[in-house]
Protein backbone atom coordinates (compact mmCIF):
# COMPACT_ATOMS: atom_id res chain seq x y z
CA UNK A 1 0.00 0.00 0.00
CA UNK A 2 1.26 3.41 -0.96
CA UNK A 3 1.83 6.26 1.46
CA UNK A 4 -1.20 8.54 1.17
CA UNK A 5 0.07 11.23 3.50
CA UNK A 6 0.79 14.68 2.15
CA UNK A 7 2.81 17.68 3.12
CA UNK A 8 0.82 20.68 1.97
CA UNK A 9 2.85 23.84 2.39
CA UNK A 10 4.18 22.44 5.66
CA UNK A 11 0.79 21.18 6.79
CA UNK A 12 0.90 17.43 7.37
CA UNK A 13 -2.16 15.39 6.58
CA UNK A 14 -2.73 11.62 6.72
CA UNK A 15 -4.24 11.71 3.23
CA UNK A 16 -5.05 14.29 0.55
CA UNK A 17 -8.81 14.14 1.17
CA UNK A 18 -10.06 17.24 2.89
CA UNK A 19 -13.61 18.46 3.35
CA UNK A 20 -14.09 21.92 1.85
CA UNK A 21 -15.39 24.72 4.02
CA UNK A 22 -19.15 24.21 3.68
CA UNK A 23 -22.16 22.65 5.45
CA UNK A 24 -20.35 19.32 6.12
CA UNK A 25 -17.78 21.17 8.25
CA UNK A 26 -20.26 23.28 10.16
CA UNK A 27 -19.83 21.64 13.58
CA UNK A 28 -17.44 19.56 15.65
CA UNK A 29 -19.93 16.70 15.57
CA UNK A 30 -19.77 16.56 11.77
CA UNK A 31 -16.01 17.00 11.41
CA UNK A 32 -15.33 14.30 14.00
CA UNK A 33 -17.63 11.89 12.20
CA UNK A 34 -15.88 12.75 8.95
CA UNK A 35 -12.47 11.99 10.47
CA UNK A 36 -13.82 8.68 11.76
CA UNK A 37 -14.95 7.90 8.21
CA UNK A 38 -11.42 8.52 6.90
CA UNK A 39 -11.20 12.13 5.80
CA UNK A 40 -7.67 13.39 6.32
CA UNK A 41 -8.59 17.00 6.92
CA UNK A 42 -11.37 19.54 7.13
CA UNK A 43 -11.57 23.20 6.34
CA UNK A 44 -14.02 24.48 8.93
CA UNK A 45 -17.12 26.29 7.68
CA UNK A 46 -16.00 29.91 7.24
CA UNK A 47 -15.68 31.79 10.52
CA UNK A 48 -16.54 35.45 10.83
CA UNK A 49 -19.17 37.60 12.36
CA UNK A 50 -22.20 35.27 12.57
CA UNK A 51 -24.76 35.81 9.83
CA UNK A 52 -28.42 34.97 9.36
CA UNK A 53 -29.24 32.61 6.49
CA UNK A 54 -32.30 32.42 4.29
CA UNK A 55 -34.77 29.58 3.94
CA UNK A 56 -34.56 28.07 1.35
CA UNK A 57 -30.94 28.27 0.16
CA UNK A 58 -29.92 25.28 -2.04
CA UNK A 59 -30.87 24.16 -5.54
CA UNK A 60 -29.59 21.44 -7.82
CA UNK A 61 -29.37 20.88 -11.53
CA UNK A 62 -30.28 17.30 -12.40
CA UNK A 63 -29.22 16.39 -15.91
CA UNK A 64 -29.95 13.44 -18.14
CA UNK A 65 -30.88 11.18 -15.25
CA UNK A 66 -27.99 12.21 -13.05
CA UNK A 67 -29.11 13.86 -9.85
CA UNK A 68 -27.03 16.83 -8.70
CA UNK A 69 -24.95 17.25 -11.82
CA UNK A 70 -24.60 20.78 -10.51
CA UNK A 71 -25.38 22.38 -7.17
CA UNK A 72 -26.25 25.96 -6.31
CA UNK A 73 -26.50 27.78 -3.01
CA UNK A 74 -27.16 31.16 -1.50
CA UNK A 75 -25.88 30.16 1.93
CA UNK A 76 -23.46 32.47 3.73
CA UNK A 77 -20.62 31.79 6.18
CA UNK A 78 -21.20 30.27 9.63
CA UNK A 79 -24.22 31.51 11.51
CA UNK A 80 -22.76 30.31 14.84
CA UNK A 81 -20.79 32.49 17.27
CA UNK A 82 -17.01 32.35 16.92
CA UNK A 83 -16.50 31.13 20.50
CA UNK A 84 -18.73 28.12 19.90
CA UNK A 85 -16.85 27.16 16.75
CA UNK A 86 -13.48 27.66 18.43
CA UNK A 87 -14.44 25.42 21.34
CA UNK A 88 -15.47 22.67 18.92
CA UNK A 89 -12.32 23.08 16.83
CA UNK A 90 -10.25 22.72 20.00
CA UNK A 91 -12.11 19.59 21.08
CA UNK A 92 -11.93 18.06 17.61
CA UNK A 93 -8.21 18.69 17.28
CA UNK A 94 -7.64 17.17 20.72
CA UNK A 95 -9.54 14.03 19.74
CA UNK A 96 -7.94 13.79 16.29
CA UNK A 97 -4.44 15.26 16.67
CA UNK A 98 -3.21 13.67 13.44
CA UNK A 99 -6.01 14.99 11.27
CA UNK A 100 -5.77 18.39 9.68
CA UNK A 101 -8.02 21.25 10.68
CA UNK A 102 -7.89 24.45 8.72
CA UNK A 103 -9.85 27.49 9.81
CA UNK A 104 -11.57 29.30 6.96
CA UNK A 105 -11.81 32.99 7.71
CA UNK A 106 -13.68 35.97 6.38
CA UNK A 107 -13.87 39.45 7.81
CA UNK A 108 -14.12 42.98 6.49
CA UNK A 109 -11.01 44.25 4.68
CA UNK A 110 -9.63 45.89 7.83
CA UNK A 111 -6.23 45.08 9.26
CA UNK A 112 -7.33 44.97 12.91
CA UNK A 113 -10.25 42.65 12.10
CA UNK A 114 -7.92 40.18 10.39
CA UNK A 115 -5.41 40.37 13.23
CA UNK A 116 -8.07 39.68 15.83
CA UNK A 117 -9.60 36.64 14.14
CA UNK A 118 -6.24 35.10 13.21
CA UNK A 119 -4.99 35.31 16.81
CA UNK A 120 -8.19 33.82 18.19
CA UNK A 121 -8.35 30.83 15.84
CA UNK A 122 -4.66 30.04 16.05
CA UNK A 123 -4.96 29.95 19.84
CA UNK A 124 -7.12 26.81 19.61
CA UNK A 125 -4.56 24.87 17.62
CA UNK A 126 -5.58 24.92 13.95
CA UNK A 127 -3.04 23.61 11.43
CA UNK A 128 -3.52 26.44 8.99
CA UNK A 129 -5.73 29.27 7.83
CA UNK A 130 -7.74 29.59 4.64
CA UNK A 131 -8.82 33.08 3.65
CA UNK A 132 -12.19 32.98 1.96
CA UNK A 133 -12.01 35.49 -0.89
CA UNK A 134 -14.47 33.51 -2.91
CA UNK A 135 -18.03 33.47 -1.64
CA UNK A 136 -19.93 35.14 -4.52
CA UNK A 137 -23.18 36.07 -2.80
CA UNK A 138 -24.41 37.72 0.36
CA UNK A 139 -21.01 38.46 1.84
CA UNK A 140 -19.83 39.98 -1.45
CA UNK A 141 -22.54 42.64 -1.19
CA UNK A 142 -20.88 43.59 2.10
CA UNK A 143 -17.45 43.97 0.51
CA UNK A 144 -16.18 40.53 1.55
CA UNK A 145 -15.69 37.16 -0.18
CA UNK A 146 -15.63 37.50 -3.95
CA UNK A 147 -15.86 41.29 -3.71
CA UNK A 148 -12.41 41.19 -2.12
CA UNK A 149 -11.24 38.30 -4.25
CA UNK A 150 -11.95 40.15 -7.47
CA UNK A 151 -9.56 42.95 -6.51
CA UNK A 152 -6.00 41.65 -6.70
CA UNK A 153 -4.59 44.52 -4.62
CA UNK A 154 -7.07 43.82 -1.85
CA UNK A 155 -6.19 40.11 -1.90
CA UNK A 156 -2.54 41.02 -1.58
CA UNK A 157 -3.09 43.55 1.22
CA UNK A 158 -5.36 41.28 3.26
CA UNK A 159 -3.04 38.32 2.86
CA UNK A 160 -0.18 40.50 4.06
CA UNK A 161 -2.19 41.61 7.10
CA UNK A 162 -2.85 37.98 7.97
CA UNK A 163 0.81 37.09 7.51
CA UNK A 164 1.80 39.85 9.92
CA UNK A 165 0.38 37.82 12.80
CA UNK A 166 -0.13 34.26 11.54
CA UNK A 167 2.09 31.50 12.86
CA UNK A 168 0.52 28.73 10.74
CA UNK A 169 0.51 28.45 6.93
CA UNK A 170 -1.88 30.75 5.10
CA UNK A 171 -3.94 29.45 2.19
CA UNK A 172 -5.77 31.94 -0.03
CA UNK A 173 -9.03 30.53 -1.43
CA UNK A 174 -9.92 32.13 -4.71
CA UNK A 175 -13.05 32.98 -6.63
CA UNK A 176 -13.46 31.70 -10.18
CA UNK A 177 -15.59 34.76 -10.99
CA UNK A 178 -12.66 36.57 -12.53
CA UNK A 179 -11.12 36.84 -15.98
CA UNK A 180 -7.61 35.57 -15.27
CA UNK A 181 -7.20 33.51 -12.12
CA UNK A 182 -3.40 33.80 -12.20
CA UNK A 183 -3.53 37.56 -11.63
CA UNK A 184 -5.19 37.06 -8.26
CA UNK A 185 -3.02 34.05 -7.44
CA UNK A 186 0.14 36.08 -8.08
CA UNK A 187 -1.11 38.86 -5.83
CA UNK A 188 -1.91 36.36 -3.10
CA UNK A 189 1.66 35.09 -3.34
CA UNK A 190 3.01 38.65 -3.30
CA UNK A 191 1.02 39.16 -0.11
CA UNK A 192 2.84 36.18 1.37
CA UNK A 193 0.38 33.30 0.80
CA UNK A 194 1.94 29.93 1.56
CA UNK A 195 -0.60 28.17 -0.66
CA UNK A 196 -3.73 28.76 -2.68
CA UNK A 197 -6.98 26.84 -2.94
CA UNK A 198 -9.44 26.96 -5.82
CA UNK A 199 -12.17 27.16 -6.77
CA UNK A 200 -14.94 28.63 -4.70
CA UNK A 201 -18.38 28.66 -6.35
CA UNK A 202 -19.26 30.18 -9.72
CA UNK A 203 -21.97 32.85 -10.11
CA UNK A 204 -25.15 31.08 -11.09
CA UNK A 205 -28.90 30.92 -11.19
CA UNK A 206 -29.94 27.28 -10.96
CA UNK A 207 -33.22 27.73 -12.83
CA UNK A 208 -36.65 29.28 -13.13
CA UNK A 209 -39.84 27.42 -12.28
CA UNK A 210 -41.85 27.66 -15.50
CA UNK A 211 -45.15 27.25 -13.63
CA UNK A 212 -44.75 29.72 -10.76
CA UNK A 213 -42.17 31.84 -12.61
CA UNK A 214 -40.13 31.91 -9.41
CA UNK A 215 -36.38 31.56 -9.44
CA UNK A 216 -34.87 28.33 -8.12
CA UNK A 217 -34.20 28.54 -5.23
CA UNK A 218 -36.54 31.28 -4.06
CA UNK A 219 -37.10 32.93 -0.75
CA UNK A 220 -40.77 33.86 -0.53
CA UNK A 221 -40.91 34.39 -4.29
CA UNK A 222 -37.61 36.29 -4.60
CA UNK A 223 -34.27 34.93 -5.74
CA UNK A 224 -30.69 36.07 -6.05
CA UNK A 225 -27.58 34.80 -7.79
CA UNK A 226 -25.82 32.02 -5.96
CA UNK A 227 -22.69 29.90 -6.23
CA UNK A 228 -22.42 26.89 -8.54
CA UNK A 229 -20.44 23.77 -7.72
CA UNK A 230 -20.57 19.99 -8.10
CA UNK A 231 -19.56 17.73 -11.02
CA UNK A 232 -20.58 20.34 -13.62
CA UNK A 233 -17.84 22.74 -12.53
CA UNK A 234 -14.97 20.25 -12.50
CA UNK A 235 -13.56 21.18 -15.94
CA UNK A 236 -13.55 24.87 -15.00
CA UNK A 237 -11.85 24.17 -11.69
CA UNK A 238 -9.31 21.87 -13.29
CA UNK A 239 -8.30 24.42 -15.90
CA UNK A 240 -7.92 27.13 -13.26
CA UNK A 241 -5.76 24.81 -11.18
CA UNK A 242 -3.71 24.08 -14.30
CA UNK A 243 -3.28 27.77 -15.10
CA UNK A 244 -1.97 28.45 -11.60
CA UNK A 245 0.16 25.31 -11.50
CA UNK A 246 2.08 26.19 -14.66
CA UNK A 247 2.60 29.82 -13.68
CA UNK A 248 6.06 30.13 -12.17
CA UNK A 249 5.11 33.44 -10.57
CA UNK A 250 2.50 31.59 -8.53
CA UNK A 251 4.72 28.72 -7.47
CA UNK A 252 2.99 27.73 -4.21
CA UNK A 253 1.15 24.48 -3.38
CA UNK A 254 -2.44 24.23 -4.60
CA UNK A 255 -5.44 22.69 -2.91
CA UNK A 256 -7.77 21.68 -5.76
CA UNK A 257 -11.52 22.12 -5.28
CA UNK A 258 -14.51 21.87 -7.60
CA UNK A 259 -16.64 18.93 -8.65
CA UNK A 260 -14.43 16.25 -7.13
CA UNK A 261 -16.42 13.12 -6.32
CA UNK A 262 -14.30 10.09 -7.25
CA UNK A 263 -10.74 8.91 -6.74
CA UNK A 264 -10.17 9.43 -10.45
CA UNK A 265 -11.06 13.12 -10.04
CA UNK A 266 -8.53 13.31 -7.22
CA UNK A 267 -5.82 11.79 -9.41
CA UNK A 268 -6.62 14.27 -12.19
CA UNK A 269 -6.39 17.27 -9.86
CA UNK A 270 -3.14 16.03 -8.35
CA UNK A 271 -1.58 15.29 -11.74
CA UNK A 272 -2.55 18.81 -12.75
CA UNK A 273 -0.70 20.34 -9.83
CA UNK A 274 -2.82 20.01 -6.68
CA UNK A 275 -0.97 18.78 -3.62
CA UNK A 276 -4.29 18.01 -1.94
CA UNK A 277 -7.98 18.32 -2.73
CA UNK A 278 -11.18 19.42 -1.05
CA UNK A 279 -14.72 18.11 -1.49
CA UNK A 280 -18.09 19.67 -0.70
CA UNK A 281 -20.97 18.77 -3.05
CA UNK A 282 -20.19 15.06 -3.32
CA UNK A 283 -20.34 14.78 0.46
CA UNK A 284 -23.57 16.75 0.60
CA UNK A 285 -24.97 14.33 -1.97
CA UNK A 286 -23.60 11.00 -0.73
CA UNK A 287 -22.31 11.50 2.80
CA UNK A 288 -18.93 11.16 4.49
CA UNK A 289 -18.47 7.52 3.57
CA UNK A 290 -17.63 8.23 -0.07
CA UNK A 291 -14.10 8.74 1.19
CA UNK A 292 -13.72 4.99 1.75
CA UNK A 293 -14.06 4.34 -1.98
CA UNK A 294 -11.77 7.25 -2.75
CA UNK A 295 -9.06 5.90 -0.44
CA UNK A 296 -9.35 2.36 -1.83
CA UNK A 297 -9.36 3.55 -5.42
CA UNK A 298 -6.38 5.83 -4.94
CA UNK A 299 -4.44 3.12 -3.13
CA UNK A 300 -5.06 0.57 -5.88
CA UNK A 301 -4.19 3.08 -8.54
CA UNK A 302 -0.89 4.00 -6.91
CA UNK A 303 -0.02 0.32 -6.44
CA UNK A 304 -0.81 -0.42 -10.08
CA UNK A 305 1.37 2.46 -11.17
CA UNK A 306 4.13 1.32 -8.85
CA UNK A 307 4.15 4.59 -6.94
CA UNK A 308 5.15 4.54 -3.29
CA UNK A 309 3.62 7.87 -2.35
CA UNK A 310 0.67 9.93 -3.50
CA UNK A 311 2.97 12.96 -3.55
CA UNK A 312 4.63 11.45 -6.61
CA UNK A 313 1.52 12.34 -8.62
CA UNK A 314 1.67 16.04 -7.90
CA UNK A 315 2.10 18.10 -11.04
CA UNK A 316 3.04 15.27 -13.39
CA UNK A 317 0.63 16.49 -16.08
CA UNK A 318 1.48 20.17 -15.76
CA UNK A 319 4.16 20.08 -18.50
CA UNK A 320 1.51 18.65 -20.83
CA UNK A 321 -0.63 21.75 -20.43
CA UNK A 322 0.46 24.73 -22.51
CA UNK A 323 -0.96 27.29 -24.93
CA UNK A 324 -2.93 26.71 -28.09
CA UNK A 325 -0.19 28.44 -30.03
CA UNK A 326 2.26 25.73 -29.00
CA UNK A 327 0.20 22.78 -30.24
CA UNK A 328 1.43 20.85 -33.28
CA UNK A 329 -0.62 21.82 -36.34
CA UNK A 330 0.76 18.82 -38.22
CA UNK A 331 -0.49 16.23 -35.73
CA UNK A 332 -3.31 14.30 -37.34
CA UNK A 333 -5.93 11.89 -36.01
CA UNK A 334 -8.84 10.35 -37.89
CA UNK A 335 -11.92 8.43 -36.88
CA UNK A 336 -12.15 4.71 -37.69
CA UNK A 337 -15.41 2.85 -37.35
CA UNK A 338 -15.22 -0.70 -36.14
CA UNK A 339 -18.02 -2.64 -37.87
CA UNK A 340 -17.98 -5.38 -35.23
CA UNK A 341 -18.99 -3.01 -32.45
CA UNK A 342 -21.17 -0.61 -34.46
CA UNK A 343 -24.92 -0.90 -33.85
CA UNK A 344 -25.75 1.19 -36.93
CA UNK A 345 -27.55 3.92 -35.06
CA UNK A 346 -26.20 6.52 -37.53
CA UNK A 347 -25.56 9.08 -34.82
CA UNK A 348 -21.99 9.56 -36.00
CA UNK A 349 -23.13 10.12 -39.59
CA UNK A 350 -25.64 12.77 -38.52
CA UNK A 351 -23.12 14.52 -36.28
CA UNK A 352 -20.48 14.60 -38.98
CA UNK A 353 -22.95 15.71 -41.67
CA UNK A 354 -24.58 18.45 -39.60
CA UNK A 355 -21.79 19.67 -37.39
CA UNK A 356 -18.49 18.59 -38.82
CA UNK A 357 -16.96 17.74 -42.18
CA UNK A 358 -19.40 15.42 -43.98
CA UNK A 359 -16.98 12.55 -44.27
CA UNK A 360 -18.83 9.52 -42.91
CA UNK A 361 -20.26 7.64 -45.89
CA UNK A 362 -23.17 5.21 -45.70
CA UNK A 363 -22.14 2.20 -47.76
CA UNK A 364 -23.12 -1.39 -48.30
CA UNK A 365 -20.54 -4.06 -47.72
CA UNK A 366 -19.91 -7.23 -49.73
CA UNK A 367 -22.56 -9.12 -47.75
CA UNK A 368 -25.12 -6.42 -48.47
CA UNK A 369 -25.00 -5.06 -44.95
CA UNK A 370 -25.25 -1.30 -44.38
CA UNK A 371 -22.00 0.04 -43.01
CA UNK A 372 -20.55 3.42 -42.20
CA UNK A 373 -17.08 4.37 -43.28
CA UNK A 374 -14.98 7.44 -42.68
CA UNK A 375 -13.27 9.06 -45.69
CA UNK A 376 -10.10 9.56 -43.76
CA UNK A 377 -8.56 12.17 -46.03
CA UNK A 378 -11.52 14.48 -45.32
CA UNK A 379 -11.70 13.71 -41.62
CA UNK A 380 -10.35 16.55 -39.49
CA UNK A 381 -10.16 14.36 -36.39
CA UNK A 382 -12.55 16.57 -34.45
CA UNK A 383 -13.69 13.66 -32.20
CA UNK A 384 -17.39 14.54 -32.56
CA UNK A 385 -18.48 11.17 -33.96
CA UNK A 386 -16.72 9.27 -31.18
CA UNK A 387 -18.25 11.62 -28.61
CA UNK A 388 -21.82 10.95 -29.80
CA UNK A 389 -21.34 7.23 -30.48
CA UNK A 390 -23.24 5.20 -27.88
CA UNK A 391 -21.45 1.89 -28.60
CA UNK A 392 -18.19 1.21 -26.78
CA UNK A 393 -15.32 0.46 -29.14
CA UNK A 394 -17.27 1.36 -32.28
CA UNK A 395 -15.14 4.39 -33.11
CA UNK A 396 -11.42 4.71 -32.53
CA UNK A 397 -9.57 7.94 -33.02
CA UNK A 398 -6.34 6.89 -34.67
CA UNK A 399 -3.18 8.96 -34.92
CA UNK A 400 -1.64 9.02 -38.40
CA UNK A 401 1.95 9.70 -39.27
CA UNK A 402 1.80 12.89 -41.28
CA UNK A 403 5.39 12.36 -42.37
CA UNK A 404 6.34 15.95 -41.70
CA UNK A 405 7.97 17.81 -38.86
CA UNK A 406 5.77 19.19 -36.09
CA UNK A 407 4.93 22.86 -36.53
CA UNK A 408 3.02 25.05 -34.11
CA UNK A 409 0.96 28.14 -34.83
CA UNK A 410 3.63 30.27 -33.17
CA UNK A 411 6.36 28.68 -35.29
CA UNK A 412 4.23 29.17 -38.39
CA UNK A 413 3.82 32.84 -37.61
CA UNK A 414 7.58 33.14 -37.19
CA UNK A 415 8.06 31.58 -40.62
CA UNK A 416 5.62 34.01 -42.18
CA UNK A 417 6.98 37.11 -40.49
CA UNK A 418 10.53 36.01 -41.32
CA UNK A 419 9.59 35.73 -44.98
CA UNK A 420 7.59 38.91 -45.13
CA UNK A 421 10.19 40.96 -43.33
CA UNK A 422 11.78 42.18 -46.51
CA UNK A 423 8.55 42.92 -48.38
CA UNK A 424 5.73 45.27 -47.84
CA UNK A 425 2.20 44.05 -48.53
CA UNK A 426 1.89 46.47 -51.46
CA UNK A 427 4.94 45.02 -53.21
CA UNK A 428 3.45 41.56 -53.15
CA UNK A 429 -0.13 42.48 -53.96
Amino acid at each position, binding site marked *: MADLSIDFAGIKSPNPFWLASAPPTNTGYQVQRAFEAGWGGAVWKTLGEPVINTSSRFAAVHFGGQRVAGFNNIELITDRPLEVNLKEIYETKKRFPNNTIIASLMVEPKQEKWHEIVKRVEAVGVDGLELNFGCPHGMAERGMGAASGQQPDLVQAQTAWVKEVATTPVIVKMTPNITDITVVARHAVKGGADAISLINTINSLAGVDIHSWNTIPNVGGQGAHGGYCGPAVKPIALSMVAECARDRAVGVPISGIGGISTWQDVVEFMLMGSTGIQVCTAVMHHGFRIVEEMIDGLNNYLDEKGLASVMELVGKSVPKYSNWGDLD*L*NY*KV*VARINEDNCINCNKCHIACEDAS*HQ*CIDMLTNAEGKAILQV*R*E*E*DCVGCNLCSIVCPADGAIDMVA*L*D*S*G*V*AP*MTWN*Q*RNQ*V*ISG*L*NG*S*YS*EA*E*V*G
Partner: protein
Amino acid sequence: MSAFDEFDQERQAIDSLLLQGYTVTGIFEDLDGARVRFIPSEPAGEPVELLLLTADARKHVTTLIFGGSKPASPIGTHT
Protein backbone atom coordinates in the same frame (compact mmCIF):
# COMPACT_ATOMS: atom_id res chain seq x y z
CA MET B 1 -15.67 18.54 -54.35
CA SER B 2 -14.41 17.04 -51.11
CA ALA B 3 -12.31 19.20 -48.82
CA PHE B 4 -9.37 16.95 -49.51
CA ASP B 5 -9.68 17.43 -53.29
CA GLU B 6 -9.80 21.21 -52.88
CA PHE B 7 -6.67 21.03 -50.77
CA ASP B 8 -5.01 18.63 -53.19
CA GLN B 9 -5.44 21.01 -56.12
CA GLU B 10 -3.86 23.84 -54.18
CA ARG B 11 -1.08 21.61 -52.94
CA GLN B 12 -0.25 20.49 -56.43
CA ALA B 13 -0.05 24.10 -57.55
CA ILE B 14 2.37 24.89 -54.72
CA ASP B 15 4.45 21.76 -55.22
CA SER B 16 4.72 22.23 -58.94
CA LEU B 17 6.02 25.78 -58.58
CA LEU B 18 8.57 24.65 -56.00
CA LEU B 19 9.68 21.79 -58.23
CA GLN B 20 10.16 24.27 -61.07
CA GLY B 21 12.63 26.11 -58.87
CA TYR B 22 10.40 28.86 -57.50
CA THR B 23 10.86 29.97 -53.92
CA VAL B 24 8.34 31.45 -51.56
CA THR B 25 9.22 35.00 -50.63
CA GLY B 26 6.11 36.25 -48.93
CA ILE B 27 2.86 35.04 -47.41
CA PHE B 28 0.09 37.51 -46.69
CA GLU B 29 -3.01 36.29 -44.96
CA ASP B 30 -6.27 38.17 -44.91
CA LEU B 31 -9.99 37.50 -44.84
CA ASP B 32 -9.84 35.80 -48.23
CA GLY B 33 -7.05 33.32 -47.47
CA ALA B 34 -3.31 33.46 -48.02
CA ARG B 35 -1.60 35.15 -50.95
CA VAL B 36 1.69 33.36 -51.46
CA ARG B 37 4.35 35.05 -53.53
CA PHE B 38 6.83 32.91 -55.45
CA ILE B 39 9.87 34.11 -57.35
CA PRO B 40 11.56 32.06 -60.06
CA SER B 41 15.18 30.95 -59.90
CA GLU B 42 16.20 32.83 -63.05
CA PRO B 43 16.35 36.58 -62.48
CA ALA B 44 14.44 37.36 -65.66
CA GLY B 45 11.41 35.29 -64.70
CA GLU B 46 8.15 36.76 -63.47
CA PRO B 47 7.00 36.33 -59.86
CA VAL B 48 3.84 34.28 -59.38
CA GLU B 49 1.19 34.66 -56.74
CA LEU B 50 -1.17 31.93 -55.53
CA LEU B 51 -4.28 32.58 -53.48
CA LEU B 52 -4.66 29.66 -51.13
CA LEU B 53 -8.14 29.08 -49.83
CA THR B 54 -7.88 25.82 -47.92
CA ALA B 55 -6.51 25.56 -44.42
CA ASP B 56 -4.48 22.48 -45.28
CA ALA B 57 -2.76 24.20 -48.20
CA ARG B 58 -1.95 27.22 -46.07
CA LYS B 59 -0.48 24.82 -43.54
CA HIS B 60 1.34 22.84 -46.23
CA VAL B 61 3.24 25.77 -47.61
CA THR B 62 4.50 26.92 -44.24
CA THR B 63 5.32 23.37 -43.17
CA LEU B 64 7.59 23.03 -46.20
CA ILE B 65 9.40 26.23 -45.36
CA PHE B 66 9.55 25.47 -41.65
CA GLY B 67 10.71 21.88 -42.01
CA GLY B 68 12.94 22.63 -44.99
CA SER B 69 11.40 19.55 -46.59
CA LYS B 70 10.79 18.79 -50.24
CA PRO B 71 7.31 19.31 -51.62
CA ALA B 72 6.84 15.64 -52.43
CA SER B 73 5.41 14.35 -49.17
CA PRO B 74 1.69 14.99 -48.93
CA ILE B 75 0.41 16.31 -45.62
CA GLY B 76 -2.59 15.01 -43.81
CA THR B 77 -3.08 11.95 -45.95
CA HIS B 78 -2.46 8.31 -45.44
CA THR B 79 -2.35 5.19 -47.48
